[in-house]
C-alpha cells in the first residue's frame, strides 16, 4: 500500500472526526481547538496534492492567525460555555442531518459523472511546478492573477475599515451607557416590539 494512500486513509477520517467533534462539543473553546486540528488535517491533504506552499499558508493563516483570533474573541466575550438553554427549533437537527447527507450524495453523483471515482491524478505535475511550487505559484499569481491580487488588497482595506468603524464607534462613554441600559432588558420584550420601539423611547430620553 503506497504511502499517500496510507496518509490519506489516516487523515481523512481524522479530519471528518474533528469536524464532527467541532459540531458536537458544548464548549466553544474545545470546538475551536477541534477546528484547528481539522485545519491541520486539511493542510496534510494539500501536501498529498503537491501543494506545499498552501500547506504552509494553511497552517500559518488558518491554524495560526484566524483560529487564534477566534479563540481571542471567545475568551473576550466569555461565551465559551455551550449554548445557553433556550427553546429548540422544531425538527432543526433532523432536517439538518438529512440535508447534509443529501448534499454529499448530490455532489458525489456529480463528481462521479464528472471525473469518475477511479480517476487518478495524471503524472507530470512537476512541469507545472518548475522552480518549486512557491516560485511557480508566484509566477502564475503575479502574471495571470495580478488583478485579483490587487482586488484582494482593496478587500483587505474594506475589512480594515469595517473593523475600525464597527469596533471604535462612538466615544466609549456612550457605549458603556448603552450596555448598562441594555443589561437588564428582557430580550423577549424586544422580540415583541418593532425595531426602535422602546429603543427609541430611550434614545429620546437621552
Amino acid at each position: 500500500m503506497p504511502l499517500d494512500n496510507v496518509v490519506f486513509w489516516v487523515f481523512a477520517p481524522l479530519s471528518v472526526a474533528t469536524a464532527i467533534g467541532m459540531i458536537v462539543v458544548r464548549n466553544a473553546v474545545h470546538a475551536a481547538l477541534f477546528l484547528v486540528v481539522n485545519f491541520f488535517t486539511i493542510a496534510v491533504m494539500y501536501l498529498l496534492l503537491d501543494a506545499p506552499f498552501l500547506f504552509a499558508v494553511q497552517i500559518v493563516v488558518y491554524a495560526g492567525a484566524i483560529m487564534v483570533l477566534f479563540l481571542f474573541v471567545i475568551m473576550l466575550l466569555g461565551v465559551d460555555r455551550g449554548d445557553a438553554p433556550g427553546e429548540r427549533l422544531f425538527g432543526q437537527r433532523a432536517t439538518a442531518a438529512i440535508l447534509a447527507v443529501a448534499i454529499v450524495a448530490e455532489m458525489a453523483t456529480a463528481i462521479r459523472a464528472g471525473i469518475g471515482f477511479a480517476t487518478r491524478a495524471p503524472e507530470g505535475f512537476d512541469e507545472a511546478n518548475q522552480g518549486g511550487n512557491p516560485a511557480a505559484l508566484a509566477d502564475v499569481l503575479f502574471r495571470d492573477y495580478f488583478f485579483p491580487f490587487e482586488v484582494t488588497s482593496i478587500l483587505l482595506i474594506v475589512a480594515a475599515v469595517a473593523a475600525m468603524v464597527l469596533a471604535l464607534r462612538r466615544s466609549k462613554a456612550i457605549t458603556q451607557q448603552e450596555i448598562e441600559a441594555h443589561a437588564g432588558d428582557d430580550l423577549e420584550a424586544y422580540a415583541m416590539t418593532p425595531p426602535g420601539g422602546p429603543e427609541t423611547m430611550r434614545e429620546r430620553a437621552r
Partner: protein
Amino acid sequence: MIDPPRVELWAILPVLVLFGGALVALLGAAVTRRGEPAPFALFTLAVLAATAATALWLWNRDPVTALEGMVSVDRLAVVATLALCGIGAFGAYLGYHYFERDASRRNEFYALLLFALGGMALLVAAADLIIVFLAIEVLSLSLYVLTALTFRRGPTEAAMKYFLLGAFASAFLLYGVAISYGAAATTSIQGLARALAGTTGDQALAIAGALLLLVGLGFKVSLVPFHMWTPDVYQGAPSPVTAFMSAATKVAVFVALVRVLHVAFVGLQWDLAPAVATVSAVSMVVGSVLAIAQRDVKRLLAYSSIAQAGYVLSAFVSPDRDGIAAALFYLISYAAAVIGAFGVTMLISGGIDEQTGFERFRGLGRRRPGLATLLTVFLLSLAGIPPTAGFVAKVFVLGAAGSAGYWSLVLIGALASVLGAFYYLRVVALMAMREPEGEDVADPSAVPRLVLAVPAVAVVVLGIVPGVIVPLLREAGVLTW
C-alpha cells in the same frame, strides 16, 4: 523571469475612480471626525459623476477583455455602471439627509458606499469567476457595515444576520467556482463557455457548479428560497442603506448572473433554464403572497423586492439580446421605483428612529399630498400598472420568457402581478382612502421631495416612451465572446 502582464488600466477606469474616491473619503472621515457631512456628500456625487463620465467614455470603445482576461469592458458593463452611478447618487443624497440630523456624524458612510459601488462596478465587468467572487466579497463587506451603521438594536441584528448568512452563501458561491473550475479547468467566463461548448457527455459537474453559483448569486438578489435574510435586513438597515442596496445590489449581481448564465454556461442552457424558471416562479409567487400579510412598509417592500427579483430572473430563460435587454430594463425601472419608495418611506418614518408601520401612512394623502403622490407613483410602477415603467418592464420580461416557450412561467408571472397589485395598492388605499391618525413625524423639508421627484418622473417617462432607452439596452445585450 516573469514576462510582465498586460495592464490596461483604462479598462477599469470607473472602478479605479470609485475606489480612489472611496480611499479619499475614508481618509477625510478619519481626519475630520464628526466633520460637516455636506462636503463628503458633494465629493461623493463628484466621484460618481466622474465615474459616469469614464463609463460613457468606454461606451464607444470596442468591447475587450482586459487585464489577462479578468475584466471584460463591454456595453453591458457600461450601462450597468451608469445605472449604479445613478443609484449611488440617490443613495448618497438620502444618506446625507438621513445622517445629517444624527448627533454622531457617520462620514464613513460615504467611503463605504463608494467601496460597495466599486465592488459592484467591478462585478458588472467581471470576466472571471474569481473576480465575481472577490467583487461580491468587497460589496458584501461594505454592505454589512453600512447595515449596522447606526448601531441601534435593529441594524446590528440585521447586520449579523446578513453577515452570517452572507458568509454561508459565499461559501456556496466559492464552491460553485471550485466545481466549475473542476469541470472546465478554467474560471474565465469565456473560457468556461469555450470549454463547455466543446465537451459532450454528462455535464453533471458543470451543471452542479453553475447551480451552486446560482445559489450564491441568488442569495445576493434574494431569490426564494435564499431570500430569508431580505425582510429582516431591509427592515433593520437604515432606510438610505436599504434603498441603496435593494437597488444597486440587484443591478450588479443580476448583470453578473447574465455573464454567468448567458456566457459561461450558455452551452448548458437547456439544462439550466428549467431550474432558473422554477426559482423565478417560486420567487414571484412566494414573494407576492408573503408580502400580503405585512404591516410594515419597509418589510412589505422587502418582500416585494423578492418577487421583483423573480420577475427579473424570468427573463433569463431566454438567452438572446432581447431577454437581456428586458432584464436590464426591468432592473432599471425597478431600481428607480424602489429607491424612490424607500426614500419616501424614509422621509415619512421620521428620521433615525424609523417608524415604518402602516399607521404612519394612514391618510397621508391628506397630510402630505406630495409625498403620498410620489409613493403612489413608485408603488404603481412596482405593481406594474400603466402608464409606468413597471408595466412595460413586466411585459418585456414575460415576453422574453414566452419567447423561450415558458408559457406557464408567463402565466404565473401575470397572475402573481395580481397579488402584487393587491398589497401595493393596499398601501395606496391606506394613504388615499383613510383618515390620518397619530402625530405627523414626516420630514417637512422640500428638497428631498424634489430629489425624489426625479425617479418618479423617470418611472413615468420610461412607462410612456420606453423607446428612449430600449435600443441602448439591446446594444448592451450583445455579449462579447
